[in-house]
């Protein structure tokens, strides 16, 4: 036990001390930080330009639409409309007026030309040409102004009083969608989806990265021939146990730090936003329930064990990093395949596909936590999926330990499948 602890501690301490670990641990809260702090910052940046109204409106509608739009762009009827030139023309003169306006743009007197014609009043289209045609916020401001004024004009033409028309057209409905779970309302649907997706990706990456870490560790010990020194003191399987547990503990540490860091960042977001001089926006990140947290850790551990065992076997089978890249492909493919199921599961978390995948051991570690974070999952399904996964872990570890024990001291030519089969069935 003391020796297992020594191996475990070495794996853990050497890895946690590394620059790579520190950098990647800081990385995730940085991403979350940007999710929290970037939108308010972007919002503060996303206003139409101050001179969006410095345009020529060529009005060939024969109505007051040009003047209305000009007033709208300049802050309503009371606004200063001197920045916007409205040129009322007959439809026949439209082309000439447009070329004149283009000349104004080219000489930088105005930013653009808005052309309103019969089609605009009919609700089909208006045309804009200008230096800021690609600025989304400017275009949105102009589009909104035209839409509302066309609507108001048509309401007035239908007999609605101008003041009523103004009230009726000034609408700004936002759709806020909230997801409902068994425990009650739990945050906005889109944010929830993003959160589930983030969980799946974190699990996928952690299992992949730490599984590969085990493979590299085995290969390093094999290449540097430390393995022989160590197995002259402890059985090879003990070395494997210590390594897998040590690396797994590093992964767990990182996930806990990620969750903890993200939680703290989220809890104190208002203070931090204030310090940055930004106003908080409503961002309801779903509360991470204890149940979800526990299952998240459980699935990470089992998934990691399953893949780490397979990756360890790969490390013991090969003699160089290049070979490892080739031989790990089947293992990596299993993991990548399970990541491919993320989208189908998000679309229908309670559908047949999602339910079937939860039973497949190599995909369950990612599929199940993903489903858990978006849909209610029955206890029976959870227990079944966990049992299947645990049984597969046992088999994977059993096979890997046998391959590891023999492969660790084999150098040179890579064994053929038949040879590997012999290693697995060979017993002492």
């Amino acid at each position, binding site marked *: 036990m003391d020796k297992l602890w020594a*191996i475990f501690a*070495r794996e853990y301490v050497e890895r946690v001390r590394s620059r790579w670990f520190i950098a990647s641990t800081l990385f995730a809260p940085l991403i979350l930080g940007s999710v929290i702090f970037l939108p308010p910052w972007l919002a503060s940046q996303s206003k139409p330009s101050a001179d969006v109204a410095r345009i020529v409106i060529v009005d060939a509608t024969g109505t007051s639409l040009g003047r209305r739009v000009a007033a709208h762009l300049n802050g309503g009827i009371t606004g200063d409309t001197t920045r916007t030139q409205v040129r009322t023309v007959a439809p026949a003169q439209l082309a000439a007026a447009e070329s004149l306006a283009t000349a104004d743009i080219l000489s930088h007197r105005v930013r653009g030309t808005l052309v309103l014609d019969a089609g605009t009043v009919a609700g089909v289209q208006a045309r804009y040409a200008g230096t800021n045609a690609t600025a989304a916020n400017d275009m949105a401001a102009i589009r909104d102004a035209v839409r509302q004024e066309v609507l108001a004009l048509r309401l007035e033409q239908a007999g609605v009083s101008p003041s009523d028309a103004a009230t009726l057209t000034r609408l700004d409905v936002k759709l806020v969608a909230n997801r409902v779970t068994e425990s009650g309302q739990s945050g906005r649907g889109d944010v929830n989806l993003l959160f589930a997706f983030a969980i799946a990706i974190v699990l996928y990456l952690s299992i992949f990265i730490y599984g590969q870490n085990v493979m590299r560790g085995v290969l390093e010990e094999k290449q540097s021939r430390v393995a022989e*020194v160590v197995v002259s*003191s*402890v059985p*090879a399987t003990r070395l494997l146990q210590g390594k897998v547990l040590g690396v797994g503990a590093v992964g767990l540490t990182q996930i806990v730090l990620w969750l903890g860091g993200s939680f703290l960042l989220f809890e104190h977001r208002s203070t931090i936003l204030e310090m940055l001089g930004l106003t908080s926006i409503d961002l309801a990140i779903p509360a991470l329930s204890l149940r979800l947290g526990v299952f998240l850790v459980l699935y990470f551990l089992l998934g990691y064990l399953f893949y780490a065992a397979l990756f360890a076997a790969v490390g013991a089978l090969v003699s160089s990093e290049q070979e490892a890249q080739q031989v790990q492909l089947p293992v990596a493919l299993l993991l990548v395949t399970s990541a491919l199921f993320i989208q189908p599961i998000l679309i229908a978390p309670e559908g047949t596909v999602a339910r079937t995948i939860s039973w497949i051991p190599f995909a369950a570690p990612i599929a199940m936590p993903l489903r858990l974070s978006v849909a209610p999952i029955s206890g029976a399904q959870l227990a079944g999926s966990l049992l299947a996964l645990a049984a597969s872990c046992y088999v994977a570890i059993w096979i890997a330990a046998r391959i590891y024990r023999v492969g660790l*001291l084999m150098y040179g030519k890579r064994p053929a499948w038949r040879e590997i089969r012999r290693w697995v069935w060979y017993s002492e």
Partner: protein
Amino acid sequence: MTPLAVELQHVVKRFRHHVAVDDLSLAVPVGTVYGLLGPNGAGKTSTIRMLLNIIAPDAGRIAILGAAPSQPGILDRVGYLPEERGLYRTMRVRDVLRFLARLKGLRRDTADARIERWLERLELRGNGIDWGRARVDELSRGMQQKVQFIGTLLHDPELVILDEPFSGLDPVNAQVLKDSVVELARRGKTVLFSTHVMDNAERMCDAVCIVAGGRAIRDGTVASLKEAHGGRHVELTLLADAGDAGVATMAVLSDRTLVERVDDYGRSMSVELRAGADAQQLLRHLVDAGAQIERFEMVRPSLRRIFLDAVGAAGTAPEMSGHG
């Protein structure tokens, strides 16, 4: 009867395409320096790995320090230096040594004190320099070998197993290793090492076992092997500038009535006399031929000679690596 540090009885180890160890029996008494000699591929490393419970024998019985190698705790009393040295490259020297010590069940404070003593003794610390703080990959190859050697001896093992300890060592480190083995022997420890460097084996070993093709073909004390090998040998050294006498000298040495064979190193030769031939007569013939003799000494056969004869007789082509 002296207790045995290592005992092998009819041990067999088969791999897929060959038999690495074939009915090998060995007995190494406690307190001896024992050499396992053999050409490459003779089964030395497989034998050592079985002693250390790294691989299991297919047949036969193995005991180290009176117990099966798989018995818990028994390997804590054994120190092992593998042929292919290996340390964690990115770890600091002290951390590696501490780790190796803990694998042998040593307490941390005991380990730390010993590490300091060894670092000083092998000149890895002192005069303001402390290589214990350095990472392993910052060390020269020679220094890494010293660290590996410390790792082998840190827990003060009763039995020390060294696989080809002299391969790849520079003369300074070879000297350090030899001194340490001698000191271990003086302190009553048992040292078992495999080698194909016969000079070292001849000088350091109390007893040896020559293996070829996985079998023991000779074993016993160095003196008894020489006795049993028989034959009379002359170590002959000529002065550098032999002049015209060179051809005549070689003619004398080719005389099959006197000389069985000559192992020629250029200026010095190892001459095996034919049965019944008279050494004095050979000496006279050489002087008559004008040979400028620096040394003419009757000796017993060298371990190298015994090794070559034994391995040759066993039908195994010895793959000597030029060490002699």
